[in-house]
């Protein structure tokens, strides 16, 4: 039924502030969505209090990217990141299945009586466990993240551990922004299933500079498309 969606392409942005350099992140997220990538975002709430604009931007990014958004205090980042990952994978599958249902019987899931939804839910869940995943983590390493970066690194490691418990193959890549020597974003780790490779990429990250969220989204989207391009024949 959904063989053509053999791989789920996701991107998650972890940030504590508003973008201030380069292309609009909302535009970048919307372009990524057109490429079949779901863009979600987590906003870390600072004790000093974030501005309303920060919150609105995260919501706008995830809306444009067809994903979900959430906020959390630094101490809850690990749980939020994992819950969000599971939710967004299921959300993407739900959208796909819903679209398929609509094309076959002219109804989406919410037009099925609640009593009868369990079978669809079970299907999505089982599929979610087995489907392969390309997951780009887009991590804000701007100066304001200084105190939170170590924690965020641990959360990324925890997430990888959790993803490795799935039955499907999960490939994780890490994009940090801003990038080295004046560039806007940096591929800290290419798609991998190996924990030690991801850890090596994480280790090198340091917090400094501004917040070019938009360009970072573009970099991550490019990484996903590039990764898939040579393997395209495999999925068709």
């Amino acid at each position, binding site marked *: 039924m959904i063989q053509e969606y053999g791989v789920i392409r996701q991107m998650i942005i972890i940030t504590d502030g508003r973008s201030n350099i380069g292309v609009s992140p909302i535009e970048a997220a919307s372009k990524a969505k057109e490429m079949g990538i779901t863009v979600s975002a987590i906003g870390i709430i600072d004790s000093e209090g974030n501005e309303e604009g920060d919150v609105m931007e995260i919501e706008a990014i995830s809306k444009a990217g067809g994903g979900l958004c959430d906020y959390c205090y630094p101490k809850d980042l690990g749980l939020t990141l994992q819950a969000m990952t599971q939710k967004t994978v299921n959300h993407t599958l739900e959208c796909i299945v819903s679209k398929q249902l609509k094309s076959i019987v002219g109804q989406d899931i919410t037009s099925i009586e609640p009593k009868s*939804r369990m079978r669809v839910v079970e299907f999505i869940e089982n599929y979610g466990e087995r489907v392969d995943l390309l997951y780009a983590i887009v991590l804000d390493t701007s100066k304001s993240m200084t105190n939170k970066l170590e924690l965020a690194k641990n959360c990324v490691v925890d997430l990888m551990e959790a993803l490795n418990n799935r039955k499907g193959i999960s490939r994780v890549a890490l994009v940090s922004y801003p990038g080295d020597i004046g560039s806007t974003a940096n591929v800290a780790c290419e798609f991998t299933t190996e924990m030690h490779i991801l850890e090596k990429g994480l280790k090198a990250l340091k917090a400094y500079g501004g917040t070019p969220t938009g360009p970072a989204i573009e970099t991550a989207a490019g990484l996903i498309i590039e990764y898939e391009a040579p393997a395209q024949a495999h999925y068709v």
Partner: protein
Amino acid sequence: MYSVKCKEIIGRWYKGKYKIIKPIGSGGVGEIYLANHEHRGLVALKVTKSMMSITKEYDVMKRYEGKDYIPKVYELDDFEIHGEIYHYFAMEYIKGYNLTKVMKDSLPLKLKIDIFIIILQIIADINDEGLIYSDLKHENIMVDERNLTIRLVDFGSLTQFGKGVKEYTPLYDRCSWGLGDRVADISYQTFSAAILLMTLLIGRKLTPDKDKIKSAMDILKKDNIPKTLIDLIEKVLKGDIIGCRVFLKNLRNIDLSEKDKVFGIDSWLDSIIAILVFLLGFMLMKLNETSFRGGINPR
């Protein structure tokens, strides 16, 4: 933070009519409201935008409806406000308090152990169905004020043996303590139960950290708790004792004081539960005359 701002909702499919009274809790997957149904009276409504999680939770609560520690559930339905579709189910409203209160009150050790034994039996019963209650925590365990029984709330975390654990709270999570992976197996469950007992005994929660289980055990030792009991908790945490029934058996064999032995609660279980929990309720009321905060799952 609560998303349902309207005063009344009507189910899209089954036309249940509810007057929203107040929000009473929120969890990882939804918000809980106290509401008044036109015929049933007071109910708790679990409301979320996540169709998948609520459908699953409803399904499992319905499947094990007969069990007395599971709140009765009514219908699963949708409603719409401001063009957004929400999903909800209605369930029995449990008036009472959660185990956090029991933890904080200074009750006799034996009483705390007896309460824990009841909880452990419930968890063992769930495990017998091939399921792990991965988000075991004080907030999810309620003392029902009306008949003084123990009820569980929030069944979103029930996970089949062998699957990855997706809903958990770090304090009770073996992985957060650096003592194992996050997979729903019987030892994951026993670990969380041991943490529940530990925090119940010391009367406060701890912050989990990798390689910090030893300092947690030291706190227990300072607290004047019988050594045999500490040894048992340590064995469970280390994975030397696996399975709630084995834990239970070991717990019952512990001599808590020279004269006063722990009851065997095999055949007269029901009456003992009633008496114990009644005692608990009575003591709590004496200790704390302030009105109980009713509600399901306040976090």
